[in-house]
């Protein structure tokens, strides 16, 4: 006969060799490996202070005949701690879902049972196939002041635990984040970025249950976010972006009337439109340029060629010292 035996971590375990007498000669194995006689008390196997690594198949054989007399699967684990339960409606007004998990693993199978009561009425929470630790409920009533009470009980061979959540219909409404967030520069506008997004696809009826949005943005080089709340529409133009700086942008959503804000959307990056960089010139450069007869540095027609000796860098990135200083001053002006 094969058995399964569940024991707590740290427990002392005594295994009997089936119906064999205490003084019978036996051999115990663990996962096929002989167990040293020091662990035996007569024909009993004694495991003290068991740990997780001692889980496995234990077999007992009669000494002379080597007949298998007893076999058991030892599963070392722990009783469940209080489970973590969360309920949320991301598809209001259709229904809500509850999901749960254990804060620490038990290493043995656990069974979850969830009950949902609305006033005096029991409701059925349909378990989802995937993920397993989730179930959903359809609202039978809307606009009720009566609270929902959800109790989750977790049981395993070593114990049980439970947790309860009580909430009202509006409090758990939290949409999924907006989708397809796109940010684009606006041509010929160095301080603008055009942002657009879509309602989360899980929100069933945005026309009757419109969402409002919160947009946050900052240049990568700064930590401080700018925020904008938008009561309608799924687009916004940022008009105060720092020229030439890459921005990170996110959007969140909330039902217009009830519930809480969604998590932030996936972040998008964008840099405002910038003009083609013009090479700046001074009178001295113009003088040097006109006196130079040849140069190996190819420049666009508007660019004044520097004296070779005053060039820093090489190839396409070559710049005059003076031009470099002016450009640097120009850049600082725009930070």
């Amino acid at each position, binding site marked *: 006969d094969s058995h399964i035996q569940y024991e707590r971590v740290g427990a002392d375990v005594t295994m009997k060799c089936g119906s064999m007498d205490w003084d019978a000669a036996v051999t115990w194995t663990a996962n096929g490996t002989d167990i040293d006689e020091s662990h035996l008390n007569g024909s009993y196997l004694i495991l003290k202070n068991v740990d997780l690594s001692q889980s496995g198949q234990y077999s007992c054989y009669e000494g002379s005949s080597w007949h298998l007399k007893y076999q058991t699967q030892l599963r070392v684990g722990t009783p469940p701690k209080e489970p973590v339960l969360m309920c949320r409606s991301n598809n209001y*007004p259709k229904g809500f879902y509850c999901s749960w998990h254990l804060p620490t693993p038990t290493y043995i199978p656990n069974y979850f049972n969830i009950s949902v009561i609305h006033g005096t009425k029991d409701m059925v929470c349909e378990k989802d196939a995937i993920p397993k630790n989730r179930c959903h409920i359809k609202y039978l009533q809307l*606009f009720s002041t009566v609270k929902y009470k959800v109790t989750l009980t977790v049981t395993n061979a070593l114990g049980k635990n439970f947790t309860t959540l009580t909430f009202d219909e509006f409090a758990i409404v939290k949409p999924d984040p907006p989708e397809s967030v796109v940010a684009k520069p606006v041509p010929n506008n160095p301080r603008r970025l055009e942002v657009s997004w879509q309602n989360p696809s899980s929100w069933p009826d945005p026309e009757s249950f419109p969402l409002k949005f919160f947009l946050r943005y900052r240049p990568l080089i700064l930590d401080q976010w700018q925020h904008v709340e938008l009561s309608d529409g799924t687009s916004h133009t940022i008009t105060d972006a720092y020229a030439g700086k890459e921005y990170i942008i996110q959007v969140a959503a909330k039902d217009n009337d009830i519930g809480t804000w969604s998590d932030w959307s996936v972040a998008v990056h964008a840099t405002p439109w910038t003009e083609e960089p013009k090479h700046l010139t001074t009178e001295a450069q113009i003088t040097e340029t006109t006196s130079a007869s040849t140069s190996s540095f190819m420049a666009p027609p508007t660019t004044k060629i520097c004296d070779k000796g005053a060039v820093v860098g090489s190839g396409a990135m070559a710049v005059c010292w003076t031009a470099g200083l002016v450009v640097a001053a120009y850049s600082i002006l725009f930070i």
Partner: protein
Amino acid sequence: MAAADSPSAALRRDLCSRGIRLAGKMRADVVDLLDAYVEQQGLDASASVAAVEGVPLAAVERWDEQTGTQRLLENLAAYRAFRALLAQMLEEQREQLGEAEAGLGRALAALLLQVSAFAYHLEELLRLENRGIPGEEEEEEDGPPPPPRLSLFEQKLRGLGVLRELAQWAVRSVRDLRQLAKPSPATAAAPGLAESP
């Protein structure tokens, strides 16, 4: 889309928009008043209040299947009831409270005005739907036959129940008016959720 451009459709949309704003403001004020009420009446904000007789419950089954007319009629009946309930609360406040709670009384009076205005707004919408407006119950000077006199604590609890339910109704009314504002066929059947894009 020709129906959506007709004067009555435009008026209906306009009335619905204004109604939505009224209901939104009403809800914000009820929520503020609830906080003040709980504090000043010495109540526990999380106290469960059993359904109080005479207070219209906002809770509804199959909300998405209601017709536009049903929505308007249910809303109107509710706000008429709230008008009477708030008037009663106001009278009780005046009897119970001294100057310290005068602010609460003023807030209740302001809310009563809003509720009355909203009820009238609903009547306008019903007229537009070419539906007769149900008559109100005949009232004596003191209102409907007064219920047995409640203790002070019972009055406070009932007041809590009234305000909570009114807050729910205000949210429901916004939703109802949005449904109503949607272009719908002449049969005035409200589109169900399944039909939404």
